C-alpha cells in the first residue's frame, strides 16, 4: 500500500493575525479550519515582520530584505509553499521574490543583509489560493451546516489582486475566487460594484478621514446590494470596516451594523467548528446574525 505523503505548507502568519494582535481571529480561524480539513500548516521558525507599507513606502531595499529573510528561512526548512493569509504579507513576499529574481545586484545586497542565500523557488500562497488549491473538495465533503438565506458581499480590496502582472491571481477587475468559496459554504453571493476598491489600508491612524470616506462608500455599496455581511481575507480591510464602522456611521450619518467576517470564519461555521473557537466573539460589530444563519 502506498502511503500518500501529507502536504506540508510553511505558515507565515505575519504580525497582525498572531495571538494578542488586532486581527487574531483571522489567524485563529485559519488554523482551526486547517486542523479540520488540512493542509498541514507549520509555522516558519522565527519569522520577522515583512515591513508592510511602511518599509516599501520609504526604503525599497529594506522592504525587500525583510521579506526575503522569511522566504529564506522557509527554504531552509524545506518548504515548497508558504501560506501568508495577510495579503499585505503575501503581496510583499511575492513582489520581493520577483524583484530579487529580476535584479542580480539587489539580490546580492539582500543576501548580504540577511546573511543567508535565497534561491527563490518557494511558492507564496494567499488564503483564497490555498483554499481553492487544497480545500474545495474537503469543504463539500465535510460541510455540516448550511446557512439559511445568508447573502454575502465578497470584498477583495487591493493586495490580493494588484499588481496583477506580479501576483498573477484571479481577474484584477472582476475576481470570483472568494465568491466560489462563499458559495461552497452554502451562502449566497451578491453582485456589487466595489469589491476591489481600496479601504485606505494603512492610513487608519495617520489619515483616518480618508479611511472613513473610502470605507463608507464600500459599506454603503454592499448594504445597498442587499448583503447581510461582508466577507474579507485581509486584516486591514477587516480593521477598517469592522473596528471603524461605528465611527463611519457617526461621520456619515447612516446606520449599517453589518458584520464583517473573515472567509476562514465562514468556512469554519459551515464545518460546525463553533463560533467562539473561530474568534467570532472578537469582532466589534456583532456577528450573531451570521452565526445564527448557520444554526
Amino acid at each position, binding site marked *: 500500500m502506498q502511503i500518500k505523503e501529507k502536504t506540508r505548507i510553511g505558515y507565515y502568519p505575519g*504580525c*497582525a493575525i*498572531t*495571538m*494578542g*494582535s*488586532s*486581527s*487574531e481571529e483571522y489567524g485563529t480561524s485559519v488554523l482551526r479550519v486547517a486542523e479540520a480539513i488540512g493542509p498541514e500548516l507549520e509555522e516558519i521558525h*522565527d*519569522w*520577522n*515582520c515583512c*515591513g*508592510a*507599507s*511602511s*518599509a*516599501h*513606502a*520609504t*526604503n*525599497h*531595499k*529594506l522592504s525587500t*530584505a*525583510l521579506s526575503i*529573510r522569511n522566504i529564506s528561512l522557509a527554504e531552509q526548512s524545506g518548504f515548497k509553499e508558504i501560506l501568508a493569509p495577510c495579503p499585505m504579507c503575501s503581496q510583499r513576499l511575492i513582489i520581493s521574490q520577483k524583484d530579487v529574481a529580476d535584479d542580480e545586484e539587489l539580490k546580492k*545586497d539582500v543576501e*548580504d*543583509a*540577511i*546573511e543567508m542565500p535565497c534561491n527563490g523557488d518557494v511558492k507564496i500562497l494567499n488564503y483564497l489560493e490555498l483554499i481553492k488549491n487544497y480545500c474545495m473538495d474537503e469543504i463539500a465533503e465535510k460541510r455540516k451546516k448550511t446557512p439559511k438565506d445568508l447573502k454575502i458581499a465578497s470584498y477583495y480590496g*487591493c493586495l490580493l*489582486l*494588484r*499588481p*496583477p502582472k506580479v501576483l498573477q491571481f484571479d481577474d*484584477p*477587475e472582476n475576481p470570483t475566487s472568494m465568491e466560489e468559496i462563499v458559495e461552497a459554504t452554502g451562502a449566497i453571493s451578491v453582485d456589487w460594484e466595489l469589491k476591489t*476598491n*481600496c479601504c*485606505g*489600508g*494603512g*492610513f487608519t*491612524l*495617520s*489619515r*483616518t478621514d*480618508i479611511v472613513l470616506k*473610502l470605507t463608507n462608500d464600500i459599506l454603503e455599496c454592499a448594504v445597498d446590494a442587499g448583503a447581510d455581511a461582508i466577507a474579507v481575507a485581509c486584516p486591514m480591510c477587516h480593521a477598517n470596516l469592522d*473596528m*471603524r464602522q*461605528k465611527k463611519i456611521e457617526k461621520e456619515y450619518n447612516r446606520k449599517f451594523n453589518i458584520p464583517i467576517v473573515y472567509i476562514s470564519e465562514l468556512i469554519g461555521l459551515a464545518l460546525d467548528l463553533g463560533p467562539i473557537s473561530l474568534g467570532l466573539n*472578537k469582532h*466589534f460589530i456583532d456577528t450573531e446574525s451570521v452565526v445564527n444563519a448557520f444554526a
Partner: protein
Amino acid sequence: MKIKITTKELKSDFAKEVKDRSGIDVKKCYQCGKCTAGCPVAYEMDYMPNQIIRFVQLGLKREALTSRTIWLCASCITCTTRCPKEVKIAELMDVLREMSLEEGLANPLEKNITTFHQAFLNSVKKHGRISELWMLNEYKMKRPKTALQDLIIGPQMLSKGKLSFLPHDIKGKDAVKRIFEKCK
C-alpha cells in the same frame, strides 16, 4: 495650475535618476489621465497622479518631491493595473517618497503619515515584529494631536485581547537590526 519651468530643469536628469533607481520609464506616459481617474485618494491630493508623472517628465524635482500626493498615495496599485502604457505609477510613488526623505523634502502637512511609517519601522527594528500597542504609543507621543482620536477603540481592543502589552521579540532580532543597518 501655473508652474514656471527653467531650462535648467528641462535639461535635468531627474527622469533618468528615477529610471536608474527603479526601472520606471516615465517617458512612456502620454498623459491620458487613466491613473487619476481611478485613484481613490485623488480628491485629497494637491497634484493629480498624472501631474506627478508630468513633473518627473519635465524635470520638476522639487514639485514632485515636496508634493503631498506622494504621501497620500495608498499603494492600492489601481493606477499601475490600468495604465495602458504599463507605467508603474504606484511604484513610482515609492521611489519618489524614498528620494523625498533622502533630500529632506517630505511635505510637513503629511507629517502624520511619515511619523507613522517611522514608528512602525522602529518597532520592527527593535523587536523583529510589530508590537501594535507600543508602535501606537510612539506614534501618539510624536503626534499628540491625534492622541484623542482612538480613545474608544484602544480600550475596546485591549478588552477583546486584540492588543498585547508584551512585545513579540523574535530570537533573530539582532539579525533584523543588522538588516536595518545594512539597508540604510
